[in-house]
């Protein structure tokens, strides 16, 4: 294959924003590692706002230019080198990641503060903050990467940081959860890498943009994408590969659970989207899309029912995550047609991703506040909670609206769009599943709120007075309100989510 060297990249300022989005958290990590006296939470206090600023700048750049921005690393153009690229959806994901990680960082300033008298860092704070930084960088790389092997490295960064956060408290149950998570994730990585190998053997290229021009339907391509998809499914915990998620997400500290459920499981899903819409020669087989959608439907129904039966709040929220991930996989059968990115199915899927991320982050943080106050998270013993912690329960309920798909909430708009797309394409079984999932979600959300509204019977051991609201309560409420605000998005395909995708969709021969 002949290949011409491009001129050196020069100063491409918008493109450099992508580079900094990936590097900034790592710089924070290096500072934490190298300089013990800095205290990691202070480093995070600097990195988090800067990262949010970067993400917003990228989004503004993409929106104003109405086109994707990209950067060729070291001037080595693909296929030999690596490229970063942000289209509309990537830019939105970057902002989402910055928001959720920023919230997690603010929430944890207190819980993971290095004791002021400590000579250097201490175990749990150091591990928490360094892993949070690495996770952020890896997420950003997944959102702006273009190279299949580069994604592999990002996925491994995600795995190691997530697993460490899961067992941060060192209890035997969380250690087991972490080990199970690690083995699942590693198996997923290996399967993914196997697919990458076959793609390289077939095309000699790993860059997604080049592959979308080269890829031909054929046994090797299809088998490779199938393997990568199954590997990523294990990491995204799509039913029936979800068994590792509930104990892991329930065992982590609240801020970590929020990031894991809101962002970390979305990264592999995001990659599956990219493989299916960019690598696979369009249009992919409707049967394969329906298979993924059927697994998603099974996740919605079965895991919602299991969530209903949980006695612990954090486990219930974690099962709800698996159910809500199911909705995302409905996208694969709701985006048929010549212009998938201009349809309601695509916009609905992306909105579901965003609103679930914000709502679920709010819920896990609320659960953290509750568990800290009560000393447990047994739903049956929540009586009197609504009086003690009105804000946490209120935020929990608001976030619950998104899961149920009730107005006004991002979840409502997202699910309505998915519903319309299902109806428009005559797939009534999907419409039925979306509705049933909403009813089940209402069941588990109201169960918690109902238990919290009950008055404490008799026992006067603890004062039933309202706890003072703190900044952390405001934070939890803010996340829930953001999820709510997404409900005011107009009910039509969003142009933002199609930026940088139009040429991909129409560029197919």
């Amino acid at each position: 294959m002949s290949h011409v060297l491009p001129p050196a990249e020069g100063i491409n300022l918008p493109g450099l924003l992508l580079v900094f989005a990936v590097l900034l958290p790592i710089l924070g990590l290096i500072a934490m590692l190298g300089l013990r006296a800095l205290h990691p939470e202070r480093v995070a206090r600097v990195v988090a706002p800067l990262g949010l600023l970067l993400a917003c700048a990228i989004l503004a750049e993409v929106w104003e230019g109405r086109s994707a921005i990209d950067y060729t690393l070291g001037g080595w153009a693909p296929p030999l080198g690596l490229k970063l690229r942000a289209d509309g959806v990537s830019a939105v994901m970057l902002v989402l990641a910055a928001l959720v990680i920023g919230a997690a960082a603010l929430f944890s300033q207190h819980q993971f503060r290095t004791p002021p008298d400590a000579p250097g860092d201490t175990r749990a704070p150091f591990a928490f903050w360094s892993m949070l930084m690495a996770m952020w960088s890896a997420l950003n790389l997944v959102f702006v990467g273009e190279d299949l092997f580069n994604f592999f490295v990002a996925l491994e960064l995600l795995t190691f940081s997530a697993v460490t956060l899961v067992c941060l408290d060192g209890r035997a149950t969380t250690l087991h959860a972490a080990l199970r998570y690690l083995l699942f994730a590693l198996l997923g990585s290996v399967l993914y890498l196997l697919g990458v190998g076959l793609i390289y053997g077939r095309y000699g290229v790993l860059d997604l943009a080049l592959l979308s021009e080269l890829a031909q339907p054929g046994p090797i391509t299809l088998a490779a994408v199938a393997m990568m998809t199954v590997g990523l499914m294990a990491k995204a915990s799509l039913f029936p590969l979800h068994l590792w998620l509930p104990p892991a997400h329930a065992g982590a500290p609240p801020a970590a659970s929020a990031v894991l459920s809101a962002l970390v499981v979305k990264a592999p899903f995001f990659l599956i989207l990219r493989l299916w819409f960019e690598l696979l020669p369009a249009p992919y087989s409707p049967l394969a899309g329906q298979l993924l959608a059927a697994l998603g439907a099974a996740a919605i129904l079965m895991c919602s029912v299991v969530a209903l039966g949980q006695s612990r709040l954090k486990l219930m929220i974690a099962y709800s995550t698996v159910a809500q991930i199911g909705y995302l996989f409905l996208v694969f059968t709701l985006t048929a047609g010549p212009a998938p990115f201009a349809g309601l199915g695509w916009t609905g899927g992306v909105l579901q991703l965003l609103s679930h991320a914000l709502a679920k982050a709010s819920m896990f943080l609320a659960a953290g506040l509750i568990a800290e106050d009560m000393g447990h998270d047994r739903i049956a013993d929540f009586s009197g909670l609504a009086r003690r912690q009105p804000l946490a329960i209120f935020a929990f309920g608001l976030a619950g609206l998104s899961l149920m798909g009730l107005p006004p909430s991002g979840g409502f708009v997202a699910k309505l769009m998915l519903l319309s797309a299902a109806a428009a394409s005559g797939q009534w079984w999907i419409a039925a599943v979306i509705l049933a999932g909403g009813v089940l979600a209402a069941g588990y959300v109201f169960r918690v709120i109902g238990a919290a509204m009950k008055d404490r019977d008799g026992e006067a051991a603890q004062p039933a007075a309202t706890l003072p609201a703190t900044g952390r309560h405001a934070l939890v409420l803010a996340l829930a309100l953001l999820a709510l605000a997404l409900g005011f998005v107009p009910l039509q395909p969003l142009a933002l989510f199609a930026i940088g995708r139009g040429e991909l969709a129409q560029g197919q021969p």
Partner: protein
Amino acid sequence: MSEPFALLLTVLVLLTAGWIVTVRERRAAVLGFIAYGLLLALVWIRLAAVDVALTEAAIGGGATGVLLLRVAARLGDLRPMSAQPGRMLKWLAGLVCAGVSLALMALVLALPDPAPSLAGAAMEPLARTGLGNPVTAVLLAYRALDTFLEIIVLLLALIGVWSLGPDRFWGGRPAAWYEGTPSSALTFLARVLPPFGIVIAGYLFWIGADEPGGKFQASTLLAAMWLLTMMAGLVAAPRTGSPALRGALAFGPLVFLVVGLAGIGWGEGFLAYPDRFAKPLILLIEAALAVSIVAALALMVAGPAERNTP
């Protein structure tokens, strides 16, 4: 002439893999794994990938082997992660896995011929990097971001390992290798081998720019020598919180970042090297990375801090 060798290697590798999976004792399986790593190194030589062969022998066989031997010796009974499968289930799993292997084989045989390759594309600009070894050029120029992140993966895993230690020993030293005194043979080896190891590592590092070898192979060798002296009790494992160690770990990625960012200042872009200085800059990055890699590899095998002795 070379095909019988490939056939022999294939049979040996598969038999060893089968042995590791089926043998009853953990220790036997780990010893099998070390042999397996060495066999794989031969396979890589047969594939004319000497860089990979060195890495596989050093990390795949050596470092992983030492790590697993240490772990196997310390492990007690573990709660099984899955149920002991019955005979039926084993057969079923065997059939499924054989099916996977066969399907993969069909795909491998269906790969296009002539194979697509970036060999030409990688050789064309090689002169611009000043390097003679295209694998090093891929690692440090064309796909430098992968390599940078790989070091971060290594550091992250080390932090993960450290975080599994008890709170009260954070920043302290990893556990001693043996409870009693190490054998005299080990002590002898630990006194004799390191000087040779250091010389060979220096050689591997130096030729890596132009010939097979490089920072990973050299670093692993150095880490192995360090571990050997730790095992023999000649030197104590360093305090995981010591500023020097922390600095060494951060040094490699920091230099990599600074050189990468300097590329922007030169108007060439992030991770771009000006042609005239490409080789010295790459060697500088490799040397800095080697410092971090040696520390990370050795300490990952040594394990989390478990004592507080000064």
